[in-house]
């Protein structure tokens, strides 16, 4: 077993892991229903009176309902993300842009990914990936505010419309908001393709439990990771205790 002499590190809290899988499910749902809403490419319940057709099969009404429900679940799931961020240092994935060390590690990983170096320094949380998560959260943020801007304006006098409505004005007009929402959705899917590949590749190359860490929260590294300091020197004793556990 390759894990024989690896050390086990507890990295991700359950809150982050549940959030992650909720995000996966909702993004898949949002993307597929969103594609239909943007371009209703299959025929709905034609041949019926609208009165009966609305609830029949996968009508636009039902697609929109699923889309909005998934959007709410997605948005609310960020509470888990924030809670994990607060409780567990391992969840704090924001790249340390202000540290020199970060750029050195980033370059190291980049050289490995471009096949110039055969391996990169061992790290618990890949610096390049961390930068990409910032990009992802930014895209998700855009999706949420543009989405709610369109959604809440159904009731222009509601409090939601008061918060999000001005987004439409900020971005020019509401048509532009539709377009931005549509394009950024595609960008998120591009991120997902690369993200899934990168995780699978990391598992294949280094066998450090990259994919399983999103279920179990732990990673296995044969060498001391360079970013170990990020998750240890905190006040949170529960994290410190657990990272000491060693499998043999």
């Amino acid at each position, binding site marked *: 077993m390759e894990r024989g002499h690896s050390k086990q590190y507890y990295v991700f809290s359950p809150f982050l892991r549940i959030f992650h899988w909720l995000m996966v499910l909702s993004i898949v749902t949002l993307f597929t229903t969103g594609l239909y809403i*943007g371009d209703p490419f299959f025929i*709905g*319940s*034609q041949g019926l009176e609208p009165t009966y057709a609305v609830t029949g099969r*996968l009508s636009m009404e039902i697609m929109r309902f699923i889309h909005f429900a998934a959007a709410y679940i997605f948005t609310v799931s960020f509470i888990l993300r924030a809670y994990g961020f607060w409780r567990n240092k391992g969840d704090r994935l924001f790249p340390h842009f202000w540290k020199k060390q970060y750029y050195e590690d980033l370059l190291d990983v980049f050289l490995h990914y471009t096949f110039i170096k055969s*391996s990169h320094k061992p790290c618990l949380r890949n610096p390049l990936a961390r930068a990409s998560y910032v990009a992802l959260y930014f895209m998700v943020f855009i999706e949420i505010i543009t989405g709610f801007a369109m959604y809440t304006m*159904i009731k222009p006098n509601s409090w939601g419309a008061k918060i999000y409505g001005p987004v439409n004005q900020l971005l020019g007009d*509401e*048509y532009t908001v539709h377009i931005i929402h549509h394009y950024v959705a595609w960008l998120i899917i*591009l991120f997902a393709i690369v993200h899934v590949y990168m995780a699978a590749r990391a598992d294949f190359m280094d066998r450090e439990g990259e994919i399983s860490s999103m279920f179990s929260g732990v990673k296995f590294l044969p060498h001391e990771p360079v970013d170990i300091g990020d998750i240890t020197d905190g006040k949170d004793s529960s994290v410190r205790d657990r990272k000491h556990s060693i499998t043999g």
Partner: protein
Amino acid sequence: MDGKDSLWGLFQQRGLSRRSFLKVCMTITGILGLSPAMLPKVVSAAEQNPLPVVVWLHGHECTGCDESFIRSQSPLASDVLLNMISLEYSDTLSAAAGEPFEHHLEEVMKRYEGKYLLAVEGGVSTGNEGTFCMVGGKPFVAALKEAARGAAAVLEIGSCAAWGGVQAAKPNPTNTVAVHTVVSGKPIIKIPGCPPIPEVLTGVVMHYAMFGQLPPVDSQGRPKQFYGNRIHDTCYRRPFFNSGMFAEQFDDAGSKAGWCLYKLGCRGPETYNSCGNLRWWNGLSYPIQSGHGCIGCSSNGFWDNDHFYDRMPGIPVAKTITNADTIGLVVGGAAVAGVAAHGALSVLQKSKRRSGEHEEVGGPKA
């Protein structure tokens, strides 16, 4: 009319009954989108407030808004013009013309300084010192600034005045801008539309005539009672949308059956106007009812959001036009291919690394 009379005063002068006056007040309440409980306020306003003096300027535009305005049915445009406001200057509706008429404008501006309502139709061309649009021998932008100085409030009538309009379309050679870009420090209200619905126009003018102030506006500065809802949320074809019944072409069975025009590029889902509930020509019809999708003529920048008959805007890519989904698919496919290639190289890299480690360390697995 010297602009001092109230509506009730006018009724008395013409020997009309109190009963018909109250009827008119009730109608006005309805048209203004006010609740019936507001009737007493409307009545007292109509009894006391003097009718407003209106100066109506025309800039960079097609006068289509005038065409729309004169077709107002309830109230009749003629009623508004002759009985409810005192239209002192309008270069398209007046019989007078020429220098004496321009002179009259100056007099009006002096006499009612700070009191008259300025209605502006058309964008303001600012390129080449404004000479792309000349009115009465001077650039419109100068005429507008002069007229705005003494105005009590400014109405931006039509999409040109409110947003710049078609002549502001990219690349905007005349550098046309909206009225509020050059006029500031006055209460301004937008009445966008290309043209606006006649009843909306008269409604806003009447609101001002009644209450002496502009109606409540939304975050974009448009009167809430008329631009509060999307056309899509008030559209009578909405049940077809919700059921997924879409006309695919202008000559197919769905189009004949009156199904939703979403896939034919309808901009109802992002356009705020009263077409869905007020409709046009006294409720006769509106674009969607006549079988053509909304083009979003009251939205900012609608003129650049082509193609009007596609849901998504066309993106010109080397001799062809495509859309976001096609681009997404192509780029997504490229990403998958790239990832696969990278994966293959990674496998090579790993096997190389392994053999390298075997040589160096002589044994231990990676």
